[in-house]
């Protein structure tokens, strides 16, 4: 059984619209998306946030939402403002980087709904303004009732991937390559990955490295560097036979390296067997956030009035995370792999499974 239940719901491809509301419904809500710097077509975070928004809009029968791509961080605020000025009702912003700008906009425009992906939990001061001291004195839910700060439990997704990795590994040594050491979600993914792997094989060896500690282009947007980094990583660690990439498009190069070295790769964020077909032949699964599902669902809830502001945390209990279908590579795992994963997934739903060390998001636990 490749596509196991949790993965089925969010295979992360634009085809499978989740809430199949009759499209006869009509709404004249205006919905728009602002992505992080770079491109809306990253086959990844930005793209599937946008896909989710489109699905949400389609479900409520609203016009297809436009997307704007800032050129650099100085354009976050003005890109959001452009929607506000144009009378938009729901503005989706993709990425932690836009957090401060989105919070500020939500504060300045209380009537407009904002969905800030990867921006939860929201952190505001007593006036409901973005608080970059992270004292987080104010209660966002009441101060900014129309600001939905989405967050995902990456460590749960990482945990499932880790289980898969440990099961597929013959050598007992697995690896994870992060794009950059300065990325909270990347670290949580990996921490979960570690625990998950150890749950299968207590003395599994996990080698963790990051492509860079400075350069976000090299970290997430430079597959050529990713490939040669992966090559060098595997040469240095010849025992590694399963490699987990947490490096966006740079990571695609890492997956290439894995395929070329004849070992298994594990994708991130979305089902990379679909989003990066080049490496499908060795991508045994992916640690997935249900980006599309979360955004489209929230849009639906905003329309039917059931949506609340504040932290909107997506974990296993809401199918906010999943593991990617094995596609043709189920043979890489023991026959009961899917059952093991689904069992763990069920425990996560029940909240009885620890998937992140207490210092969650702290790189030092991986060094």
């Amino acid at each position: 059984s490749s596509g196991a239940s949790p993965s089925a719901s969010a295979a992360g491809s634009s085809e499978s619209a989740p809430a199949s509301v009759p499209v006869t419904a009509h709404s004249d809500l205006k919905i728009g998306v602002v992505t992080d710097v770079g491109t809306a077509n990253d086959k990844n975070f930005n793209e599937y946030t946008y896909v989710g928004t489109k699905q949400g809009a389609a479900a409520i029968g609203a016009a297809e939402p436009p997307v704007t791509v800032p050129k650099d961080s100085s354009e976050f605020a003005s890109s959001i403002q452009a929607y506000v000025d144009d009378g938009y009702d729901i503005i989706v912003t993709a990425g932690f980087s836009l957090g401060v700008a989105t919070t500020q906009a939500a504060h300045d425009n209380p009537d407009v709904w904002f969905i800030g992906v990867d921006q939860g939990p929201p952190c505001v001061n007593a006036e409901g303004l973005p608080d970059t001291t992270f004292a987080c004195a104010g209660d966002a839910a009441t101060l900014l009732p129309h600001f939905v700060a989405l967050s995902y439990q990456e460590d749960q997704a990482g945990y499932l991937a880790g289980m898969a990795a440990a099961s597929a590994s013959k050598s007992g040594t697995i690896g994870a390559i992060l794009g950059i050491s300065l990325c909270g979600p990347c670290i949580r993914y990996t921490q979960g990955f570690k625990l998950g792997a150890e749950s299968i094989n207590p003395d599994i060896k996990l080698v963790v490295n990051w492509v860079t500690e400075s350069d976000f282009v090299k970290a997430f947007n430079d597959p050529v560097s990713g490939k040669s980094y992966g090559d060098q990583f595997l040469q240095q660690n010849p025992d590694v036979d399963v490699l987990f990439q947490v490096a966006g498009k740079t990571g695609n190069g890492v997956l290439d390296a894995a395929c070329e070295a004849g070992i298994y790769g594990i994708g991130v964020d979305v089902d990379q067997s679909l989003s990066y077909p080049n490496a499908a032949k060795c991508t045994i699964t992916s640690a997935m956030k249900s980006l599309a599902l979360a955004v489209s669902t929230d849009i639906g809830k905003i329309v039917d009035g059931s949506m609340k502001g504040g932290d909107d945390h997506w974990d296993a209990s809401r199918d906010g995370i999943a593991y990617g279908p094995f596609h043709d590579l189920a043979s890489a795992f023991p026959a009961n792999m899917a059952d093991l994963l689904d069992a763990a997934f069920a425990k996560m739903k029940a909240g009885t499974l620890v998937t992140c060390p207490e210092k969650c998001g702290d790189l030092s636990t991986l060094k």
Partner: protein
Amino acid sequence: MTTERPPSQGRRLVALPATVWAAVALPFISIVLALLVGSIVILASEVIVPGHPFDVTLPVTAYAALFEGAFGGLDPIVNTIRAATPLVLAGLAVGLAFKAGLFNIGAQGQFLLGALGSVTVGVALNQASPFIAIPAALLAGMLAGAAWGFIPGFLKAISGAHEVVTTIMLNYVAVSVIAWAVSGPLDQPGSPSPITAQVGNAALPVIIGRNGHLGVLVALAAVLAVGWLLFRTTRGFEIRTVGANPDAARYAGMQPRLIVVLTMSLAGVLAGLAGATVVLGVTHYMMASFGTTVGFDSIAVALLGRSSPVGIVFAAILFGAMRAGAPLMQIQTGSLIPAELVDVLQATILLFLAAHEVIRHILKLRGVKAGLETTDTIARTYGRESV
């Protein structure tokens, strides 16, 4: 052997409108032509996009939105000016270096360091009185930028190391410095990803419209200062002489090496100031991922402005308008048109200005000022040792 008066002499006497036309004709025509080319690109690209009906009026919709987003009212205009501000400053940084025969590809790095310097001091003083915090933060930005400009200047002076190499390399080093500072000393404990605190009272006050910050005036002041330095002072004369003919400069008792160091440092100050205005005026904090396209655009701005301070202002406004208008264009065309259209337009405008001789020939333009010929010293100086 009699030489007639060169035409430039005669034209002085012609009535004002004619001279204005002479000055603006080519830029104007180039923009029009660029828009034409752009619309061809748009129409052609509509074919590629799956599942959308072919819409002949799309270019018009796009340009209308672009224009509305850039000039359609006070807020848009302020957005344009705001986007132009760092371009003016960084453009000056590149243009000033050109005047001294130096190709400063390092505006990027100087910008980043300037931003870092100002955010560091800004955060430290975010509770202090603005009258202390703002000047201090700006100064810090200038000094940090100056340091990043000084290094290539100094290396060239002592070892002749080509500034094109050193500035390119320092751009990348700057990225590492920022990542180190923001993830280390400046990082906020609670944050999931590295981020600095807000600059608080060091933020530049808004002086026009919704968000037109003080940096605009800073940029204008810089334009006047640079113009004054270059053409009204002996230092500027030295800078221009070293750029035009370093040997003659030595003959005249100037010290080309000193001038090179000075000029690169000044360029650093300007680019650093650009970074400072962005952090103190727009973002108010900094993340480890802080990046910019200003450094890259500023080269085009300086070239388009023929590295003359006034020219740079107009070039920067053109580029700023495109940046300010881009979001609305994407919104109103249902993102059928990627933001990169703006780059295509910018490149095409440059192209037609650079090929001005061809344009004039084809359009039979008479008595019209040339496009970009006065910059021809730039490529020359690149291919020559200036110290």
